[in-house]
């Protein structure tokens, strides 16, 4: 494995890790703060991808296209969706115990899959990359790296830094972190917990949908795509420590590397590596690497 292949595989790992982080970040916040295990979080990733596919023609019709405008449009739609879902469904889940939350959100996955199948059908679709991003960078005579994947990593990193700033520098961020450590205390301090939940949930949905949108041209859009990434994201959340954003970030990158390099060196057991990693970490630190709120 010469230097360039190693460089490319590292870039692949970082890109996959960052993508996982976006979906896992929402999951860990929602679980950490609202105490809700949301199995349906993978479906938001799928909804994001289908938004990128579905909105592209509409947006090109109205505003004359532009990849970025479609993304922004999709982001707004997913925030509204998140806001509505929290009000209509998730607010009933807070008092329920984990077992009932697991089952009700499992039912929600089935509903999302079928509504998508009714609206958009079950075929596999490609999503057009914008032209200015569809080339590839020439590393050496043979090796190239698609610029779009660099774009994905860039956008994901941008969002991660944005979240870091919001969480550590703003009042809202402080409320969120307090909520994830001790929900009752935050409530008793007079913080409008209802508003906080809605903001956290809506942004969790939006970030996961964004990840779906930005990844759609690479992963293409197919039925059931949300469920594969859901399991991996749970692994990320649990390894990182529930309710900890830093944990989710470190764990997502860790899994990005283990999975990508696993496929290269040990293709036979690549699928199993991630779970071995999780089992080992959990047995060494039964409640994840970092404390909630970090």
């Amino acid at each position, binding site marked *: 494995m010469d230097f360039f292949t190693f460089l490319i*595989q590292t870039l*692949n790992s970082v890109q996959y890790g960052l993508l996982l982080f976006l979906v896992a970040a929402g999951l860990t916040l929602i679980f950490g703060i609202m105490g809700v295990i949301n199995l349906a979080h993978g479906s938001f990733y799928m909804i994001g991808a289908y938004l990128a596919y579905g909105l592209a023609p509409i947006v090109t019709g109205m505003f004359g296209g532009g990849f970025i405008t479609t993304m922004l449009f999709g982001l707004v739609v997913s925030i509204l969706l998140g806001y509505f879902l929290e009000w209509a469904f998730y607010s009933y889940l807070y008092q329920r115990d984990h077992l009932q939350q697991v089952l009700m959100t499992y039912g929600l996955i089935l509903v999302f899959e079928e509504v998508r199948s009714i609206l958009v059908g*079950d*075929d596999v679709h490609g999503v057009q990359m914008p032209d200015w991003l569809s080339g590839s960078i020439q590393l050496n005579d043979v090796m190239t790296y698609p610029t779009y994947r660099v774009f994905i990593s860039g956008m994901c990193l941008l969002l991660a830094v944005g979240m870091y700033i919001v969480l550590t520098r703003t009042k809202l961020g402080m409320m969120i972190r307090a909520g994830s450590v001790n929900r009752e205390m935050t409530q008793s301090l007079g913080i409008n917990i209802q508003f906080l939940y809605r903001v956290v949930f809506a942004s969790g949905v939006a970030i996961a949908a964004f990840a779906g949108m930005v990844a759609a041209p690479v*992963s293409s859009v197919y039925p059931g795509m949300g469920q594969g990434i859901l399991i991996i994201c749970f692994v990320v959340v649990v390894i990182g420590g529930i309710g900890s954003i830093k944990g989710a970030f470190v764990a997502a990158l860790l899994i990005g590397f283990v999975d*990508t390099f696993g496929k290269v060196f040990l293709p036979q057991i690549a699928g199993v590596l991630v779970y071995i990693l999780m089992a080992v970490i959990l047995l060494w630190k039964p409640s994840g690497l970092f404390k909630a709120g970090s």
Partner: protein
Amino acid sequence: MKLIKVSLLATNIILALSLGAAQAQNAPKLKVGMMLPYSGTFASLGNAIDNGFQLYVKEQGGKIGGREITYVRVDDESEPSKATDNINKLIKRDNVDVVIGTVHSGVAMAMAKVAKESGTLLIIPNAGADIITGPMCAKNIFRSSFSNSQPGYAMGEVAAKKGLKNAMTITWKYAAGDESVKGFKESFEKGGGKVTKELNLPFPNVEFQALLTEIAAAKPDVVYSFFAGAGAVKFVKDYAAAGLNKTIPLYGAGFLTDGTLDAQGDSAKGMLTSLHYADGLNTKRDNAFRLAYAKEFKLQPDVYAVQGYDAAQMLAIGLNATAGDVSKKDDFAKAVTAATIDSPRGPFKLSKAHNPIQDFYLREVQGKENKSIGIASKALADPGRGCNM
């Protein structure tokens, strides 16, 4: 108080009665169970087969062997785990006379097992799993398409003849992919070549990026691949996006470019593939078929439409020989194996194991068509190892 218990018992009895009742009368119409992928990555293949089948029935005036057709359609979603349930429902609950299906080899194997046990007539319009015409062969099971190793075998011969030395293969990790690659390896290594590495990824995963990087690093003389449907579209486009089509020729089974060229655009230009059908064969039979298909469905037919069409032909031959009575399996089988199927791909006969013996064309992608530029291998029969009818 005991309401829930009594209602549970009641629903049980009603369910049992209704299932029993549905079984009673046996309509004179021929019940055809179409178990094809109407969703997922093979959706376009399922629809093409269905169209081809219906085209032949329409040409016979809506009747086969003197019996009108009613269809019972089931979407198998290319999911092997649901195959047994779906075909059980078709055979035991809907009591179909014949089952047509399917595309995915894993699903087809499960169907063949149930059909072999229940004796129901099964015509497979695509799935090329070798064991269906091997250990699992049966009097009542026929195939109108190919066996997975045939296209691979043909391309292996072509690559060896061109003096290419080392090759890499890439495909989905399931029956069709493995057997196609095995066929290519067998003939390529017999011709003096060497398969350096076999890359694969789980079905229907389309994340080719890591594997394309490996191909770029290893720089083989040629890459052989087996993909179909939407997976084939994405693979060919990613292969071109990685700039590999300029330096390393991409060979494949015909499914890589059949029915997918308009989606692939010019990223498939000049690709060599082998298949038992091609565009521009320019035979009277083929032109008539293409004209009728284009008129009926407003799109160009592909190999899957041909296979659906031939499945209907085989059914007609058998039914005419048994005067429309599906239960006479021996006469049905004798008639179909004896007949020469007048197929748009060219006339062919069935081997002892009920698999077509046919020519494989070498095709090159020119514009939006897979032009035939010669015969890759003549009258290639499926070995049918382990089949004792």
